[in-house]
């Protein structure tokens, strides 16, 4: 750096970001404040704002909920008189579909899309999920049988895994958005008296059937289902939570294209050639844990990773670092001469427990651009997906 301009440029581009948890907290609180501000405005200018709200049928339902929250459940009962429709009709209709496209929009977290195909027995056959915002950044995944491919678009690599438990885990992940599962659970909860379902059925006039669901053990939660009057399939689901006396939308789920043939290409990731491919189906990754504790194996993994870099053994270093190919490791780390490990500190759990990472602070002496210095690293280490007895570095470097 040799000028004020360059220093200014470095300051301008100081790198900073927030985690999803921070973004969600801020946006949730700000959204609540916005809703409150709007409802205050509603009180000040009832007619114009009310007309704006009533233009949208879903906003109309939300408005009904707001009123219900303030005047009590008696009004709620009067708004939705139960008529001919019964949930069993949707249970029956759900038996018939074999494919679906689901669009999920959690508040402030982008649009997540899923395409799923089921067999005659109702079991999940194959799946694609596109997720713009996750703890791993943007990713797309396809799954079939015991093999899954996950393209970490933000991180720029493709991970291929094979695991007997994958089917079970994928099915479990889909359950929150699978209309079959959702309606079965709703029906069961209704039969046990855990939910109250208010039904509005204007289907005689061509309108959708609406279910407003309240939960006895979570009185601050509401779900609104929109049912197609002909097919009796669920078209939309909105999940709300009561915040400061108002219902806040948590999630909007749309169930699209029931039984529409899904093009086979949907289940193939269109990954550019230059994306690093990490195939855990053909190679062992990381180090065996054996009888070591989580902390002990994490320290061992960190130490052996840097020893491999010092020895310029990029194949081994890559194997310990998520299975990254040796050529990629050399391309990335080859410009640095790792000299010695100065220290390997005490392992600690990652602050976000969902990641299952153990962090190991390390200091390593290295030479780069002719200068020798001690650098701090904090590799994130955890059990390998599909190879639970092995541990590898999976981030933080």
């Amino acid at each position, binding site marked *: 750096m040799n000028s004020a301009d360059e220093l200014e440029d470095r*300051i*301008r581009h100081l790198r900073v970001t927030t985690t999803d948890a921070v973004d969600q907290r801020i946006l949730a609180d700000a959204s609540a404040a916005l809703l409150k501000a709007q409802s205050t405005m509603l009180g000040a200018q009832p007619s114009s704002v009310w007309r704006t709200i009533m233009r949208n049928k879903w906003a109309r339902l939300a408005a009904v909920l707001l009123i219900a929250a303030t005047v009590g459940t008696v009004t709620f009962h009067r708004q939705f008189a139960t008529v001919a429709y019964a949930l069993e009709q949707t249970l029956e209709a759900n038996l018939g579909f074999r494919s679906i496209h689901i669009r999920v929009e959690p508040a402030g977290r982008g649009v997540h899309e899923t395409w799923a195909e089921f067999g005659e027995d109702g079991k999940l056959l194959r799946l694609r999920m596109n997720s713009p915002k996750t703890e791993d950044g943007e990713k797309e995944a396809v799954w079939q049988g015991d093999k899954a491919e996950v393209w970490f678009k933000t991180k*720029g690599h493709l991970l291929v895994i094979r695991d007997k438990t994958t089917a079970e885990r994928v099915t479990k992940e889909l359950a929150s958005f699978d209309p079959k599962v959702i309606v079965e659970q709703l029906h069961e909860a209704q039969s046990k008296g855990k939910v109250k379902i208010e039904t509005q059925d204007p289907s005689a006039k061509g309108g959708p059937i609406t279910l407003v669901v309240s939960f006895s053990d979570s009185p601050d939660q509401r779900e609104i289902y929109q049912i197609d009057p002909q097919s009796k399939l669920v078209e939309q689901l909105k999940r709300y939570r009561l915040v400061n006396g108002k219902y806040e939308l948590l999630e909007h789920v749309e169930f699209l294209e029931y039984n529409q043939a899904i093009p086979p290409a949907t289940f193939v990731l269109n990954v550019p050639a230059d994306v690093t491919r990490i195939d855990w189906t053909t190679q062992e990754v990381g180090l065996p844990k054996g009888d070591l504790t989580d902390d002990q194996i994490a320290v061992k993994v960190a130490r052996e990773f840097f020893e491999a870099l010092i020895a310029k053994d990029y194949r081994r270093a890559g194997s310990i*670092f998520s299975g990254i190919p040796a050529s990629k490791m050399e391309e*990335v780390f080859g410009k640095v001469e790792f000299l010695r490990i100065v220290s390997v500190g005490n392992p600690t759990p990652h602050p976000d427990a969902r990641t299952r990472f153990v962090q190991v602070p390390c200091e390593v002496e290295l030479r*780069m651009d002719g200068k020798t210095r001690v650098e701090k690293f904090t590799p994130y280490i955890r059990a390998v997906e599909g190879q639970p007895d092995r541990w590898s570095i999976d981030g933080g470097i």
Partner: protein
Amino acid sequence: MANSSRMDAVGEDRELVERLRQGDRDALRLIYEKHKHDLLRIGSCMAANWTDAEDCLHDVFVSLAANSARIRPDGNLKGYLVTAMANRSRDRLRARKRSHQIDDVAGRTDCELVAPAIDPAAAVFAAEADDRLYRAIASLPAEQRTVITLRLHGELTFEEIAQLENVSNNTIRSRYRYGLDKLRSSLGAGVER
């Protein structure tokens, strides 16, 4: 070209403010995504504390949403956000009475430096360099780092900063110049003259 893109950004902001005034939460989210990084840079440089910067960002956006109906659509949204962030960061700093410390920028927990994993080594060294720069900025007198961050991250003019800080234009320019000189000096080996 730069002016043109800035005008585009201002036009986009005006459209977003118009939507925000109607209670559009997508607009709120877009404003947040667009400005959060610069605001966090301002907060972390001024308050010299990561948690405080994050809390200030939270307060700024809750306040923006709560006052959405009163925000002028033809006004300068970024200027509004930057001023709000600066005021809150300054309050936090005063409250903590720790004007020359940087305590958790390096050990950030819920916020973290971007580490583009496509090139892990580059990310590590870039993050380390940014840490050094954060520390160097935090070691500046509060008034100097305030001017630097408002100028470079807030994109305010010296005149606007002078008004905000209630001092003369020349004083602001001097603080900026002295601040950059000190940074060059304290970054030492990393900065070649």
